[in-house]
């Protein structure tokens, strides 16, 4: 196995280098923020990143599965919006209870993913295009349900939105963070300790070899899109906890955030290489960039965009330089 030396002390496998570099840069960014802004260097800032991005984390986990097989899923943002829209309209109009609405929404998300995966695999159409059509479809369904924002007043949803779970020393998290953490742990287990996980990596590494080895490539490919659809729907449920509304314009462009998070975490878009921990770090980096912007305060909306692009650039450049030097 290829190994690289770090400080000449111990060796780490080359495959962990991108994730490690991302982790180091994340810490560096946090320290830099702590020096520059008062009140930045506290545990709650990190926890707030989790609280504000729990839905993105869940969506990015699903995206990781897809990207590991060498595919891509552009429909996630729209499916998130569709989930908020369906849950809001079902609870407001016919007055469905949440314990019926949430499973239904998750089922719809998974079904959409299943159909897309089936089309991608069976008819050999490029994932980019199929999921782009899925993106149009889900967004179109949102507008068909309604063009206005629908408020959510259900007590269960508001309870989820307002509950604070106290940790030690004045730190707190929201229930969504726990759900997201569970999703991450389950996904990490599936990816690294189950047959499905190994097939995902093998399919992404080389589909043909995986086929020749007798791995269930078809099932794997369809499964990852189903997982992604399910995660998007769950992300949508978490977003409706967070926003307490359903709206067709929620989560516009979230697919790009999710892809960026996965790639910043060191996963290759060509598939077969990457870790779920990297995705978590990627989401944290994006969230921390947002936090830095909010601490910066008086940026006009266009400077915010330029600044985000700039930070993204610096981060990716450093990550690239360090990874390249050590491998």
């Amino acid at each position, binding site marked *: 196995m290829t190994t690289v030396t770090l400080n000449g002390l111990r060796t780490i496998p080359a495959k962990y280098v991108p994730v490690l570099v991302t982790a180091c840069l994340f810490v560096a960014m946090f320290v830099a923020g702590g020096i520059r802004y008062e009140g930045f260097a506290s545990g709650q800032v990190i926890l707030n990143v989790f609280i504000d991005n729990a839905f993105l984390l869940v969506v990015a986990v699903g995206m990781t599965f897809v990207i590991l097989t060498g595919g891509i899923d552009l429909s996630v943002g729209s499916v998130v919006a569709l989930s908020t829209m369906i849950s809001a309209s079902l609870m407001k109009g016919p007055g469905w209870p949440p314990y019926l609405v949430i499973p239904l929404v998750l089922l719809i998300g998974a079904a959409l993913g299943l159909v897309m995966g089936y089309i991608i695999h069976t*008819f050999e*159409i490029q994932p980019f*295009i199929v999921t782009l059509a899925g993106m149009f479809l889900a967004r179109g369904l949102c507008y*068909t349900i309604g063009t206005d924002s629908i408020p959510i007043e259900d007590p269960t949803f508001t309870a989820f939105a307002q509950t604070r779970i106290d940790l030690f020393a004045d730190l707190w998290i929201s229930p969504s963070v726990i759900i997201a953490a569970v999703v991450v742990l389950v996904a990490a287990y599936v990816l690294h300790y189950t047959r499905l996980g190994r097939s995902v990596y093998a399919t992404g590494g080389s589909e043909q070899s995986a086929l020749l080895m007798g791995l269930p490539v078809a099932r794997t490919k369809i499964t990852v899109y189903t997982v992604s659809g399910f995660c998007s729907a769950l992300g949508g449920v978490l977003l409706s906890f967070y926003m307490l509304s359903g709206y067709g314009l929620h989560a516009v462009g979230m697919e790009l955030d999710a892809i960026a998070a996965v*790639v910043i975490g060191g996963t290759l878009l060509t598939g077969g290489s990457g870790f779920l921990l990297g995705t978590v770090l990627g989401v944290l980096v994006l969230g921390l960039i947002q936090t830095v912007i909010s601490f910066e305060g008086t940026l*006009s909306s*266009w400077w915010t965009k330029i600044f985000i692009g700039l930070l993204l650039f610096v981060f990716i450049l450093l990550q690239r330089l360090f990874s390249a030097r050590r491998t």
Partner: protein
Amino acid sequence: MRRLLWPVVILALLLLVNLFFTANFFSIQMRDGHLYGSLIDILRFGAPLILVSLGMTLVIATGGIDLSVGSVVAIAGALACLQISDDAGVFTAVALALGLSVLLGAWNGLLVAVVGIQPIIATLILMVAGRGLAQLITGGQIITVNSPSYKIIGGGYWLTVPFGILLVVVVLAITVFLTRRLALGMLIESVGGNAEASRLAGIRSRGIIIMVYAFAALCAGVAGLMISSNVSSADGNNAGLWVELDAILAVVIGGTSLSGGRFSLGGTVLGALIIQTLTTTIYSIGVPPETTLLFKALVVTAVCLIQSKSFREKVFGRRRRAVPPSPAAEEKVRVTA
């Protein structure tokens, strides 16, 4: 040419659907010395998308992707309009805007080819920051200009034909000449097939990659001028929003694989025309605005399914199974395709 069969069939079908709803859809008239008609409109309004898609085709042929074209469209329009409203000459304004576009494209190419960032992320940076840059140029406002000579680019006519269409024809002709008559096209395809192998074979893949990204941005810049000139104003926020997705869609409908290694310029033009015709169709048959995206999703899915070989075999293939295709013949088709 076999590869272009399905896009042509789909385009023809879409146009026929329009004929069903609008009786005089195919009529082209001469009014005040200008050509008028629905077909001309499709070409005219489709011109920016065709341009952006042409650039995107070459980028995709190298195995990359360019998400930043929408932002470049906005930046080019914003800079040109700002210059014109500052009393600079139209020529200077256009030259500056296109120059900046090429620079931005070269920046993308540099990130991909030299730094080695994955194309989708490298161009995502400019996609995010570029939108901000466009708004910075316009100061968050919509700049309105009143310049008859600038108006020509997107709304003018030359020899009875809308100027935008001529511009597309010229760019297309130059691109086809450069890539199909010279070796450039083959070099691009070889870089897309395997960048490392092509480098070992003595091709300067870095230069080629930087060049195609610069070309894509230049095309996007021209499209941006066209869009802003057509409405005589620049909107940093909404100009060219999501045009990258339409462009990628056009390229893929036209038969270029996203994995790189080969491309079809004719297919891309057809793909862009299909998308523009679809938009026109949505308006002409009166699909309610809330369901336009649903309609688009259905058509895109149908288009992709029809083009998929395995779909055709599974659905229509039973009759053809009577004569088993010889492997040699199939191989030959694949080579020529």
